[in-house]
């Protein structure tokens, strides 16, 4: 295993639709160690959320994991059945969703919903400890439990609901927390608060986090490592500083050039073209129609993942070629 917590190899996920088979993930490689914070960035529809759902075992009909392996510690998640997965979900794995209000059951009180996730790990004789634990978790995420424990989700603001979701997710003390765009539905000031809260709680609990985001700034601030995804592939994986200071893949470079900065006077560059239709993706490297360095090799074969520096991996023919040039 490349990482001691999570190792995904050649993960392929497809969705069967009337329009054809959507090849959502095309051999994703990803790994991480205990206590690490990994950011997954990329455009809408590049497979960030599907990767997260695959780890959680929540890819449902009409979707299917057709190939690949997800190893979590010593367990192979992809070969587990529903009951075994249920034991891991909510104990070792937990997830926070994009729309906090929609991710809470609208007809149940916040306190009850948090209690539900706590009580599943308790024995019958420990039932009395559930509500004190609920109160503690609410206090921990910065909510006044007296005010919020009896409220329904629609009575909470987006930020409060996301705090409640975080309380639910962390109440089982997971080893890996997956946060799927946890701040995208919130306004900027609340975003900062939620990220700060997550940061603080992760430091406290010492769990690993996968933060899925399309905001490079959020990823830079929060994560130790960043994986860049494009159209169902992981194209670059490195430490946060390496990604920002020494991006190699043309797509990563394009993404970084499209980020506005204070004091930046030149025009923002955009990557020409759009994300390809995944029913009929381009052959070879899926980025080649939009890549200004595209070569013949790019149209034929998907480049394999190469270690180009310490902890810095990239999947690009361009680098392969340069490597060979240097060798010659």
């Amino acid at each position, binding site marked *: 295993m490349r990482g001691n917590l999570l190792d995904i190899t050649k993960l392929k996920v497809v969705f069967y639709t009337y329009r054809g088979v959507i090849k959502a993930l095309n051999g994703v490689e990803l790994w991480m160690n205990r206590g690490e914070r990994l950011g997954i960035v990329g455009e809408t529809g590049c497979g960030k959320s599907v990767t997260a759902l695959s780890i959680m075992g929540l890819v449902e009909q009409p979707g299917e994991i057709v190939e690949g392996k997800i190893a979590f510690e010593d367990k192979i998640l992809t070969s587990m059945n529903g009951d075994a997965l249920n034991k891991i*979900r909510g104990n070792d794995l937990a997830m926070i969703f994009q729309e906090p209000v929609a991710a*809470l*059951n*609208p007809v149940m009180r916040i306190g009850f919903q948090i209690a539900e996730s706590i009580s*599943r790990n308790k024995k019958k004789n420990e039932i009395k400890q559930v509500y004190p634990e609920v109160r503690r978790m609410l206090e921990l995420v910065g909510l006044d439990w007296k005010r919020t424990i009896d409220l329904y989700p629609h009575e909470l603001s987006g930020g409060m609901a996301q705090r409640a979701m975080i309380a639910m*997710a962390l109440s089982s003390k997971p080893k890996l927390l997956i946060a799927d765009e946890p701040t995208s539905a919130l306004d900027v000031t609340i975003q900062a608060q939620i990220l700060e809260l997550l940061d603080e709680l992760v430091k406290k609990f010492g769990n690993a986090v996968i933060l899925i985001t399309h905001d490079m700034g959020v990823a830079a601030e929060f994560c130790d490592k960043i994986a860049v995804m494009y159209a169902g592939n992981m194209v670059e994986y490195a430490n946060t500083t390496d990604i920002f200071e020494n991006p190699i893949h043309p797509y990563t470079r394009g993404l970084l050039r499209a980020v506005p900065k204070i004091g930046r006077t030149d025009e923002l560059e955009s990557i020409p073209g759009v994300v390809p239709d995944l029913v009929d993706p381009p052959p070879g490297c899926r980025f080649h129609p939009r890549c200004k360095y595209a070569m013949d090799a790019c149209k034929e074969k998907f480049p394999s993942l190469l270690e180009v520096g310490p902890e810095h991996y990239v999947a690009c023919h361009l680098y392969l070629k340069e490597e060979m040039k240097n060798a010659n």
Partner: protein
Amino acid sequence: MSEVKGVAQKGRFKLFLERRKPIIEDWKHTFYLWKSTTLAMVGTVIIFVFFGIAIFAPLLTSYDPIAQDLDNRLLPPSSQHLFGTDQYGRDVFSRVIYGSRVELWIIFIVSIISVGIGTLVGIIAGYFGGAVDEVLMRITDMFLAFPRLVLAMAFTASLGPNLTNTIIAISFVDWTVYARLARAEAIKVKSQPYIEAIRGLGAKNTRIMAFHVLPMSISPVIVQLTLRMGTIILTAAGLGFLGLGAQPPIPEWGAIVSDGRSYLVQQWWITTFPGLAIAIVVLGFNLLGDGIRDILDPRLRR
């Protein structure tokens, strides 16, 4: 110390009331709409009178609905026998009064069984989808393919005609409607993000269905149930009239109508009064059902 506690409790109660304020306001508005819908009010009154009669039956009449008195057979309505007597000298008024208990019992048990089966089948079909859905819904279609009364007759005929079997037969015919409603709701609810979220927290299918899908799918089923109560009475009375329902001497309204039908021309009162009772109660349930639908309709609410 005790004073402090008292204040705290009062505070909590006040907080409770304050939090319930929108709900109370909503109820007030519902009450206002109900008052302004005359027909719904008429229906409500009929149903409450029906319930009252069923509950206080022994206080309303001094005659035994089953005991025969052959000296006083076929008497016309009088102050002694308000609705007259039948061919065995039984007081028709008392039989109609006690009959309301039988009808209420049928409605109650049929509601529980058919809503139980219906929501169970519907939620399982809607939640799992795919092959499970296909199989369960085709079974439902098979039940729906037959006319309701004919199917209920076939059930009672094969099980043997008595009150219990009537109830079972009506329940087995009636559950399909609730199954379809519950399935539609379950399909809607299962694709909501909070179901995915709770799955992500490790909840099992049974738990999700019982605690998260069921409470969200039950309300249209309950509205439909109130709309169908009149139909349940009609089916039960129909079966009773055909001799496939409650057996004599149980005072079931349909059976009483059937008892008196050979005396219809000379002794009209034996069939007319239980027939009127059926008509009025069914009308009451239908008016109430219509009223509830109108009152709960969000487009008509504001």
